[in-house]
């Protein structure tokens, strides 16, 4: 799934085309207003679009976004990185889990504007050259998904915990996946993935 091309908002994708032909043209881009606070000029962005740049999976991306856009919506709607899913959109279900500074977070509950200047890692970075990451392969092997919507979040939460705790026990990994929910109830398969990964250091 890795894409070698650098994406910018000028490279028109389907989603971006819809954006451009829709509301985008109506919202003018405004340079940040400089507001004096405690004797210094502090930039204030928005409420219209502001230029933003991101480092996602090691590549640079840039776009014009309003400050209210979440990191998740930026990933999905601006950069076509649709592996991170939008489900509850309230920091509860975990389907949008990405790594920010190598730590798992809910992308639905981080503003894109505050995620600039920090490395972002999404599910799209895991498979290399068409070869699944061992955790992804384990999900397939143990049939640990039904509709599959929660799976990218589970894989990211599982990977980051194993990266930080390579000798984690099965119980520890299970506990740390408590921020991810599967409505289909495929927990039995996910537990089998965890049992397998706890013996193999994950990566």
């Amino acid at each position, binding site marked *: 799934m890795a894409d070698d091309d650098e994406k910018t908002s000028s490279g028109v994708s389907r989603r971006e085309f819809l954006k451009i032909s829709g509301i985008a043209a109506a919202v003018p881009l405004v340079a940040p*207003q400089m*507001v004096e*606070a*405690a004797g*210094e000029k*502090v*930039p*204030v*962005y*928005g*409420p*219209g679009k*502001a230029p933003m740049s991101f480092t996602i999976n090691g590549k640079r991306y840039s776009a014009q976004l*309003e*400050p*209210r856009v*979440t990191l998740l919506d930026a990933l999905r709607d601006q950069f076509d990185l649709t592996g991170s899913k939008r489900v509850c*959109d*309230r*920091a509860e279900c*975990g389907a949008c*889990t990405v790594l*920010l500074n190598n*730590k*798992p*977070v*809910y992308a*639905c*509950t*981080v*503003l894109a*504007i*505050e995620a600039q200047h920090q490395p972002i890692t999404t599910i799209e970075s895991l498979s290399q050259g068409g070869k699944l990451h061992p955790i992804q392969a384990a999900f397939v092997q143990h049939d640990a998904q039904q509709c599959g919507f929660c799976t990218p979040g589970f894989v990211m*939460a599982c990977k980051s*915990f194993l990266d930080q705790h390579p000798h984690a026990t099965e119980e520890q990994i299970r*506990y*740390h996946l*408590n*921020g*991810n929910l599967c409505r289909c109830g495929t927990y039995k398969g996910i537990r089998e993935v965890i049992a397998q990964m706890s013996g193999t250091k994950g990566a």
Partner: protein
Amino acid sequence: MRAFEYTSPTTRQQAVELLAGSWDQSAVLAGGTDLLSLMKDDVVAPKRVVNIKDIRELHGVRFGPRGMQIGALTSLGELADHPLVRQHYPAFGDAVVEAASQQIRNMATLGGNICQRPRCWYFRSGFGLTPKTPEGKSLVEEGDNRYHAILGNDGAALFVSPSSIVPAMIAYGARIRIAGPKGAREVALEKFFVIPRTESEREHDLRPNEIVTDVFLPPPAAGRYAHYEVRQKESFDWPLVLAAVALQMNGNTVRSAKVVMGYVAPVPWVSEEAAQALVGKTVTEQTAQAAGEAAVSQAKPLSRNRYKVQLARVAVKRAILQAAQGKAEGGAA
């Protein structure tokens, strides 16, 4: 989410000046795990969001003779992994580890945990802190109040204080520092929470242009501490009731005690009755039970939350017994 302007100051003074003097004009963004949901649900709609995460001096933990100073922007994840937290303030450490999921702990800050808004479903649906029917009756009393207050519920506010960490911090005697336009002030964490009487009041002693900057935990006194949560789920769930206790011992007898309950009142509830029931006693099953009884002696359950009286009684008893045994654990109901 409504559009807003966004700024990210680098000093606390800048932050305070960028905040407006009224709540509807501006909002402080720390971890965002509460604010963003409130904005998506249109419960709050600030015109300006002031991100305070770029203020470096508000991050990190320092430990010295004055105890532990925790920058308000220290994430719960950093605290959970901090060896000195677990070593010197184990009941606080337990409360932090038990809070939320790893994804939330990595963003959520200690200051944000203190300042988060109530989880009352009437509040979250836009009916305010003292929700009323068109006829002026309490929506909470008339409606589904299974998670609402059993203590401190004489007035119009019937929500419960939302933090699962604050009661343990109060048991340790925490103070917080607040920065505002007139400089800094310090307040005991226990006094920071107030029960709003009308819709124009808030549940905190915080002005719209103030930010919580630091949390101070006094040097750990030689005491016994415990934190006990009662939840429906083992993990990633709001407690139904929790109790945090601090016991200062004189040999085998209790010299002084602090018993703090969470999720029973619109503020973290410090029970003098329970503390008095313990002073001068040795901790046994019977004295812990008596303290649990004392803790709920003033309880006035609503139509659907009588069960919480029993949960609070037992949570206090178990927290005391665990503190006396020198270990602190949470538990699922």
